[in-house]
């Protein structure tokens, strides 16, 4: 008998394993081709793309914080058409499963990008970055209002038959409601979480440490909040959940799977250790074997609440 089966099915998509490179933390994928075999990743969520090329923010774009980092890249990107013509062919040649993370400043822009990707060869799914604030349009974020979420997801749904995964922002009061709204609007799965809006100040100069003043917090620091959000969403929707936020070890990935994620993404940890992928796979296999499982799917959403009566949702 062989080792446990790591493959998972997410919204019709078959992934060799549940480990996905998180958007914006793995470039367009091709950057890592010299270092690792891209086809061994469950999938690659490429850097967020707008319709046109974007310059992004001035440096400094990142700063480290306790067990985390802030980033304000500003979604620098080459634009979806250049991606399709310039990067997709190599990704296809390397047999990478490609999830394209898309951004828009208008609902129509999201739809337009989705149409372009539908005609492209080698796109497995679309991850809709509604969690990224609506750039320079007053800073209002689609993902922070239920109508905003519905509008974007409906428009993309109408524009493509590819699996669509809205990526939820954690900067909301009720993320389960956002997930439900995405499900209603036709999402095939939801990805969560994106980064937490945050800020760091250099006290000597009193200047913000990021040129953009605020940025997104990622890394192990946010993991407990992300796990809670995945757990809440898994109780609120029927569609699969792709969980992320501070995963840096197989143990961390397992926490998300047990909380209810069908697959997970790894972002910040890939910066520290680009060789993390085989370690994560080995750690998952070892856990499944120790616990007598034949497939990773068996542990998804298996939080054991038996030890207690009924959850009273109190934080302090």
């Amino acid at each position, binding site marked *: 008998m062989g080792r446990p089966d790591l493959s998972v099915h997410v919204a019709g998509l078959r992934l060799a394993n549940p480990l996905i490179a998180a958007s*914006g*933390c*793995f*470039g367009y994928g091709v*950057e*890592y081709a*010299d*270092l690792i075999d891209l086809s061994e990743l469950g999938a690659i969520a490429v*850097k967020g793309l707008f319709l046109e090329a974007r*310059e*992004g923010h*001035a*440096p*400094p*774009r*990142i700063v*480290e914080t*306790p*067990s*985390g*980092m802030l*980033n304000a*890249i500003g979604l*620098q990107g080459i634009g979806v058409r250049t991606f399709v013509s310039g990067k997709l062919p190599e990704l296809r040649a390397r047999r990478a499963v490609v999830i394209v993370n898309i951004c828009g400043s208008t609902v129509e822009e999201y739809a337009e990008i989705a149409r372009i990707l539908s005609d492209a060869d080698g796109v497995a799914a679309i991850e809709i970055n509604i969690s990224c604030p609506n750039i320079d349009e007053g800073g209002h974020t689609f993902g922070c209002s239920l109508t905003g979420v519905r509008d974007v997801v409906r428009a993309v749904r109408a524009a493509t038959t590819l699996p669509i995964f809205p990526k939820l922002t954690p900067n909301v009061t009720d993320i389960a409601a956002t997930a439900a709204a995405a499900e209603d609007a036709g999402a095939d799965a939801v990805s969560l979480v994106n980064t937490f809006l945050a800020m760091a100040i250099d006290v000597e100069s009193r200047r913000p440490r990021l040129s953009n003043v605020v940025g997104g917090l990622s*890394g*192990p620091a946010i993991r407990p909040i992300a796990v809670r959000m995945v757990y809440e969403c898994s109780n609120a929707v029927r569609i699969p959940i792709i969980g992320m936020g501070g995963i*840096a*070890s197989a143990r961390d990935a397992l926490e998300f799977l047990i909380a209810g994620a069908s697959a997970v993404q790894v972002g*910040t940890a*890939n*910066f*520290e*250790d*680009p*060789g993390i992928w085989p370690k994560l796979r080995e750690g998952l296999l070892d856990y499944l074997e120790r616990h007598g499982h034949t497939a990773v799917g068996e542990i998804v959403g298996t939080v054991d609440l038996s030890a207690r009566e009924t959850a009273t949702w109190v934080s302090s």
Partner: protein
Amino acid sequence: MARPVDVDARIAANHRLSHAYNILEIEAPSIACQTRPGQFVMVKRALGREPLLRRPFSVFEILRDARGAVTGLSLLSKQVGAVTRELFEAQPGDRLRCLGPLGTPFTVVNRPTRAWMVAGGVGLAPFATLAEALRAREVDTTLFYGGRSGDDLYRVPFFERLGVRVILTTEDGTRGEAGRVTEPLARELDAAGGLPLTIHACGPTPMLRAVAELAARAGHPVEVSLEPIMGCGLGGCYSCVVRVLDGGARFVRACIEGPVFEGSRVSWADLT
């Protein structure tokens, strides 16, 4: 193209040169043997430990055993914060997580073109390997090396042994010529006239900018090695961008297209 490797390297030695500077010798032959002048490594004391991210360091020396076989590399580090402090305090036997070689190297010219290297402080780091490559081709090579004071100037004999002409400056005048490294450079440029010449510079941004301007005025090509904050070193995070003037002002990743840039390409006004 070199294939970067990530090794958990043993620290063979730590030479503390002052209260701030140290040279760390690490056993990473698989990286050292493919490193080209100007390339860098991303290092960290241990995975899964604070601070989270690795830090970029130029490869200083390629270390060889008695028979000339490559045994590892060294880093020239200046304490400015958390990780450089760890590197300063490291003990032989400690481990260092080291990923490399990374980045676009310097151009190594051929005779009769001459090579001038301009280093400010810890900016000396990429020039030990460049000097070796240039001298191996018997290129007439000069090092302009400036520091705050005499104690901040290191490894000068190493360059002299290679047959590099060394011109030293210190701001306090305790060694070499008093003042900025750009002063003798300007003088020599005037003297050199139309000689075929390439300039390489590494150090504080204001110095690099001054060198780039002097070179441009004299009509010589110049390569500068920049030091933006880097999150990954591999092109994955887009944190290390530098604004370049070609193709309409745009940000390019210094970890891939750099850290070595043509001076004329850099949008100096945007470099903080």
